[in-house]
C-alpha cells in the first residue's frame, strides 16, 4: 500500500530548518522512488540534507522497506532494503555473532542513510567509513533506470554514491560485509585529562591499541578548565572476559514533546558532573548500546534541545593543523558567541573511497550549537579558518555552511559533480542541501 502525496512539516534531527513537504511512504521502494525528488530515511541528518530541494518535490520515505533480502552466514554478507535501521540489524545479527562495521553514534539510522552520508564512528581509525564495507547497491538513477552498482559495475557512480548525500540516485538495496563478533559485550576504559592538549594526546595514543576511541570535551568550563576532557576507548570483549548471556535489547523511553531541558546552564552542570565522575581511570564490561549509542539514551533526544533548534558543527582538521588548530576553532566559536553545548573529538584514519566522504586523516571536532542569531556568524568565522588550514565540514551535520566555503574546503567537488551531472544532467534528484551548497535550482 502506498500512501500518496501527504504534506507535512519536516525537519532534520536539529529541528531547524522546518519545511512543509510532500512525502510518500511504502514498503515498495521501486514504486515510491519513481519520480521522487529525494529519498529520506529516519531523518537523523541534522540540517537540510533530508529535505526536498523544491517546493513541489516529493520525498520517498524508506522506513517501511526494512526487509533483509538474504544473509550468507558462511561469509557474513547481507543484502537488505535501504529502509532497514541499524537498530534492527544489530538486533538481528549481534546474537548471531556478527556486527555492522563503522557504526555511528546512533542506531536510529537507515542503511540507505548510512551509505548516503558514508557514516563513521568511534572506529574510524581502525575500520574506516561504512562505505568501505559496502559491496554493492541497487539504485534508481535520475532517468528512472534501476541499476546494480559496485566496484565492478559503474564504479564511478558507486564511489560518488558513497557519501553522495543521496544526490546520485535513490538507494533501494545495500549489500555489505559484516564483521565477526567475539562476544556481544564491550570492554571499555575511560579517563579524564585536565586540559585539551593532554586529552588530544591521550586520544591519539589510544588509537594505536584500541579499535574504538572518542574524547568528550568540556567547552563550558571557564579559565584553565576550558577544554578538559574524558577519553573513552573500547573493544569487543573476548568470550572469556564477558558474561556468557547476551546483552538484552534495550527499549529506552522516548521524549514525548519538545521540552528544552538542554541549555548552556544545564550542560555546564552536566559537564562538571561528567568530568568529575570519569576523571579517574575506569575499566569494565559495558552494554554495547551504552558504549556505541549515547544519542539513543532516550528516544527523540533532540526534543530536549532549545526550542529554536540546533545544529552540529563537525569538521575535520588535517593532522598538520595540530591541537593548536583545534583550540583556534574553539576560540573563534566562543568569541563569536556560540554556545558549545556538547563537544566530541575523534582522530580519523585515512580518506576512504567515497568521492565526497567526510573523513580524512586528522582530528574531527563535533560541537552541538543551538540556533541563535549569532550561530551563522560563528559558523562563517570557523569555516574561514577551517578552509584555510585544509579542513572540511561534514554535510550530514551541516545546516549553515556557505557554498563558497564548501568549495574552498572540497577540491574533490568538481569531480563528484561531473559524475552527478553525467547521471542527472538536470539535477532532478536534489535536496535543500544541494540547493544551498551546489547551486541547484529550487
Amino acid at each position, binding site marked *: *500500500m502506498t500512501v500518496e502525496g501527504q504534506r507535512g512539516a519536516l525537519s532534520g534531527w536539529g529541528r531547524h530548518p522546518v519545511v512543509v513537504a510532500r512525502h510518500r511512504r511504502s*514498503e515498495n521502494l521501486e514504486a515510491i522512488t519513481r519520480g521522487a525528488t529525494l529519498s529520506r530515511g529516519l531523518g537523523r541528518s541534522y540540517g537540510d540534507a533530508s529535505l526536498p530541494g523544491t517546493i513541489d518535490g516529493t520525498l520517498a520515505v524508506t522506513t*517501511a522497506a526494512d*526487509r*533483509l533480502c538474504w544473509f550468507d552466514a558462511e561469509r557474513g554478507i547481507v543484502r*537488505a532494503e535501504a529502509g532497514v535501521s541499524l537498530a534492527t540489524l544489530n538486533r538481528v545479527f549481534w546474537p548471531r555473532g556478527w556486527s555492522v562495521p563503522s557504526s555511528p553514534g546512533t542506531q536510529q539510522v537507515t542503511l540507505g542513510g548510512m551509505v548516503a552520508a558514508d557514516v563513521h564512528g568511534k572506529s574510524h581509525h581502525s575500520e574506516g567509513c561504512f562505505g568501505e564495507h559496502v559491496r554493492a547497491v541497487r539504485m534508481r538513477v535520475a532517468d528512472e533506470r534501476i541499476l546494480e552498482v559496485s566496484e565492478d559495475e559503474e564504479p564511478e557512480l558507486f564511489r560518488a554514491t558513497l557519501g553522495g548525500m543521496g544526490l546520485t540516485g535513490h538507494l533501494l538495496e545495500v549489500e555489505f560485509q559484516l564483521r565477526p563478533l567475539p562476544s556481544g559485550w564491550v570492554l571499555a576504559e575511560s579517563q579524564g585529562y585536565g586540559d585539551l592538549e593532554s586529552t588530544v594526546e591521550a586520544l591519539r595514543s589510544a588509537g594505536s591499541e584500541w579499535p574504538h576511541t572518542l574524547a568528550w570535551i568540556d567547552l563550558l568550563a571557564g579559565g584553565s578548565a576550558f577544554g578538559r576532557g574524558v577519553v573513552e576507548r573500547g573493544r569487543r570483549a573476548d568470550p572469556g572476559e564477558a558474561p556468557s548471556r547476551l546483552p538484552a535489547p534495550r527499549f529506552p523511553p522516548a521524549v514525548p514533546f519538545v521540552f528544552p531541558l538542554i541549555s548552556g546552564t544545564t550542560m555546564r552542570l552536566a559537564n562538571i558532573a561528567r568530568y568529575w565522575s570519569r576523571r579517574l581511570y575506569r575499566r569494565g564490561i559495558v552494554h554495547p548500546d551504552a558504549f556505541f549509542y549515547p544519542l539513543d539514551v532516550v528516544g527523540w533526544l533532540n526534543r530536549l534541545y532549545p526550542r529554536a533548534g540546533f545544529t552540529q558543527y563537525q569538521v575535520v582538521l588535517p593532522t598538520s593543523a595540530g591541537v593548536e588548530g583545534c583550540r583556534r576553532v574553539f576560540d573563534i566559536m566562543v568569541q563569536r558567541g556560540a554556545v558549545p553545548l556538547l563537544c566530541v573529538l575523534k582522530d580519523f584514519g585515512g580518506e576512504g573511497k567515497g568521492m565526497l566522504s567526510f573523513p580524512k586523516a586528522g582530528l574531527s571536532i563535533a560541537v552541538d550549537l543551538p540556533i541563535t542569531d549569532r550561530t551563522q556568524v560563528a559558523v562563517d568565522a570557523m569555516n574561514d579558518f577551517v578552509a584555510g588550514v585544509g579542513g572540511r565540514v561534514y554535510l550530514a551535520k551541516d545546516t549553515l555552511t556557505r557554498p563558497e566555503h564548501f568549495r574552498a574546503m572540497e577540491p574533490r567537488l568538481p569531480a563528484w559533480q561531473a559524475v552527478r551531472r553525467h547521471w542527472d544532467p538536470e539535477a532532478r534528484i536534489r535536496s535543500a542541501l544541494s540547493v544551498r551548497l551546489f547551486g541547484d535550482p529550487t
Partner: protein
Amino acid sequence: MKALLIGATRGMGRSLARLMVERGDQLFLLGRDESALEVTAADLTARGASGSVGAACCDLESPSGFEAALDAAWAGLEGVDTVVVTAGLFGTQESLEADAVLRQRVLSVNFANTVEFCEQVRTRLLADGGGTLCVFSSVAGDRARKKVVLYGAAKAGLSSYLEGVDLRYREAGLRTVLIKPGFVRTNMTAALDEPPFAVGPDEAARAVLRAIDRGASVAYVPPVWRLVMLIIRSLPTWVLRRTDF
C-alpha cells in the same frame, strides 16, 4: 510454537512474524500478493527463522481458496497450534460512503470472510485437540463513532463473533485472543491524523505476543486503550452526536 499468519507481509503482522522468528517459532505465511510473500519469507529466513518459512496465496476476498491454503499450511508445518489473522481492509468513512464497491469489499473482508476463515481454522484446531486463534479486530468495534460507522460495524461484528467462540470452545481447548489495536503507525493509518497513545508496529507486536502467550481473551494494544474505550463506551449518545472523533 507452530504458527500460521495471514497478513504478515506488512504492518503489525510483519512485526509480529519477526518477533516470533527471533524466539524460534516456526512460521507459515498466507497472503494475497505472491511476490510480497516471497520477500517476507526471505526476510524472515535471513533473520534466522528456524526451518524454512513456507508461504501460500490466500485472499480474504475469495473464501473459495481458504481450504487449499489451510491444507498447505497444515502440511507445511506438520500441524499448526497457533493461527494469527491480521489481514483486513480499511477505508475512511467518507470513502466508504462514496464508493459502493469499496464498501462491499470492506464489509465482507472484515466481517463475513474473516469469520468464514476463522470457522475453518476453528474446526481444524479443535480436530487437533485445540490451539490458539488470534484475530485482529479494532477498538472501532467497541462503540459506534462518526468517523468509523461502517468500518466499526464490521469490526463490532467480528469482535462479537470471537467473544462467542471463546465462550463456546475455550473449554474444549480452543483459546481465542481478540486483539483490539488503538492507533498503530502503519501504512493503513498513515493518511490519518495521529491521536494520543499512537505506537509503532513493533511495540504493538510485542503487546500482541504477550497476549498470545498469556492466552488473554481480549487485549487492547497498547493497553491504555482499554481505559480510553471504557470512557468512550460510557459516554452518553448526545455527547457522541456532538463530537467528531
